[in-house]
């Protein structure tokens, strides 16, 4: 079985090379365009001459672009993302401080969306077409359509401002109370997607012959669903977890801004406001890498779950 996996896994890793090249090239070019002549007015007002000099040196701005890119990637490979204009210290350090908060938020949101989404989807699938099904699916569409930052504001209005059960914003001492509202906000969008996917994939599986067999044996419907249908419905759910990664990464800057959550997304947004370009580009790059690597993991998970895929796309 493991021998089987070697070639397709290698294939996916090789396919990653042009994407990684493209991502770094794009961020590099954005940086080059944004910096332009580093003495340009917009930056000159905020950065002191010493920082500009360091910038010229760091980015080898007097060399041709391809050489600049090669040097930049070389430093990137060593974990050197340049120096923050504002904080006068390595960008990698600034970013590393923010990662744990975002990871904690993303993890909590993922758990919420998967547990709630699968429960809602399974409940709706028990009697397709029933009022319960319609109600739950309407809820799912609402969840998908609600802009994440407005949901954050409304949850905060109800549970923090009005009921005073939870803090309005901030990280606190890393306690659950501070985590609850941001995690529900970030998880809500994806809950709807998981619910819809779970429902349709359960209904698909339910039509298969072995389910008819299980029913014919006289098993109660819920047992048929849980024991026989659910396992096979898991494959599309892995897809949804993959899509969820995109939702999380897009929702993070907004959710973190609403709740003043000290994560990478808020760092990115505030760095744009302060025109701290090295931090902006560093954060964009980290987000992209997390996304690409996350998708790779989802892809590899498929190979493990569904043996058919190992041959289909092996070429």
């Amino acid at each position, binding site marked *: 079985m493991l021998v089987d996996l070697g070639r397709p896994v290698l294939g996916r890793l090789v396919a990653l090379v*042009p*994407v990684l090249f*493209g*991502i770094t*090239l*794009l*961020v590099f070019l*954005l940086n080059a*365009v*944004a910096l332009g002549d580093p003495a340009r007015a*917009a930056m000159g007002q905020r950065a002191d001459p010493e920082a500009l000099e360091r910038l010229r040196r760091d980015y080898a701005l007097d060399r041709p672009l391809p050489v600049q890119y090669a040097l930049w990637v070389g430093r990137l490979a060593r974990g050197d993302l340049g120096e923050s204009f504002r904080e006068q210290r390595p960008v990698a350090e600034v970013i590393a401080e923010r990662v744990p908060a975002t990871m904690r938020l993303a993890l909590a949101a993922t758990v919420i969306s998967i547990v709630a989404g699968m429960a809602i989807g399974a409940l709706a699938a028990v009697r397709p077409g029933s009022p319960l099904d319609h109600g739950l699916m309407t809820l799912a*569409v*609402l969840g*998908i*359509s*609600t*802009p*994440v*930052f*407005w949901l954050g*504001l*409304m949850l*905060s*209005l109800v549970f923090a*401002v009005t009921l005073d059960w939870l803090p*309005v914003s901030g990280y606190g001492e890393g306690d659950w109370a501070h985590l609850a509202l941001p995690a529900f906000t970030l998880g809500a969008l994806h809950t709807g997607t998981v619910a819809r996917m779970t429902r349709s994939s359960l209904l698909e599986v339910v039509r298969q012959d072995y389910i008819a067999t299980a029913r014919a044996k006289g098993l109660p419907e819920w047992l048929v669903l849980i024991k026989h249908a659910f396992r096979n419905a898991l494959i599309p759910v892995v897809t949804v977890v993959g899509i969820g990664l*995109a939702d999380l*990464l*897009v929702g993070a*800057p*907004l959710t973190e*801004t*609403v709740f003043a959550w000290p994560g990478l997304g808020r760092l*990115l*947004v505030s*760095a*744009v*406001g302060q*025109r701290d*370009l090295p931090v*902006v*580009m560093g*954060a*964009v790059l980290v*987000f*992209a890498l997390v*996304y*690409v690597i996350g998708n790779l993991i989802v892809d590899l998970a498929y190979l493990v779950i569904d043996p058919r895929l190992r041959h289909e796309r092996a070429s």
Partner: protein
Amino acid sequence: MAARPGPLGHRGFLAGLALVVLLAGAVLLAPLLAPHDPLAVASGAGPTLERPSTAHPLGTDALGRDLLSRVLWAGRVSLAVGLGVELVAVLIGCVIGVLAGYYGGAVDAVLMRATDVVMAFPSLVLAIGLIAVFERPGLDKVVIVLVALGWTTIARVARGTVLALKTREFVQAAHALGAGHVTIMVRHLLPNAVAPLLVAATIGVGSNIVAEAGLSFLGLGAQSPTISWGAMLADGQTFLATAPWVAVFPGLALLLAVLGVNLLGDGLRDLLDPRFRE
């Protein structure tokens, strides 16, 4: 899932269509419907942050401006950005997708790798990165950025259709009759992609509206005096404890708009894509 075949039997599609028509109508008629000037601030020490009343059905904001009027006028921005960006994105995406699918080989490889790269970023994050390139944010930059990101899905859809059809008999027949490459691409191949493109473009309009609102909420989009639901929500957050209506209504309008477009998109997919027909 349709109870009856056809658009009239599809509940989601009808609900989406009704919502979109209603909102678009209200927003287009903003100059007639808005009870006040959306930019008129309370004079002197006049009252601000008023609760909803008969004079101001949705209340007023921190400068005493009428919220109903502002929500209506801001909708025009959302509608224009959502539709306008998507139109340009469809144009660019079609050109890229059709060229890639039709010529294949190196053209395809280069164009599709470029698409992969743009799609390898979480969309809003790349949008924020692109905005950062400009010296100061604004609605015009949001439009540029959303076009730069929006063509990718369209390109993939167009390419897929062209790839599937370019070796079929009707294309060969057109070749044999002396039709040029451009004629074959535009007259014979592209029309076959209209249904999936319509679905992708509808969903794209929704994403554009949310993205514009999100960027404006973060302070990276529309700047005063341009009115945007996202920017209004940023104001609303400041007064969440004292005047929650400032945050409630623009968001509700945004939710309804996105919900309408999403329902419409889902419905179109059900109705147009044979794979989703039961």
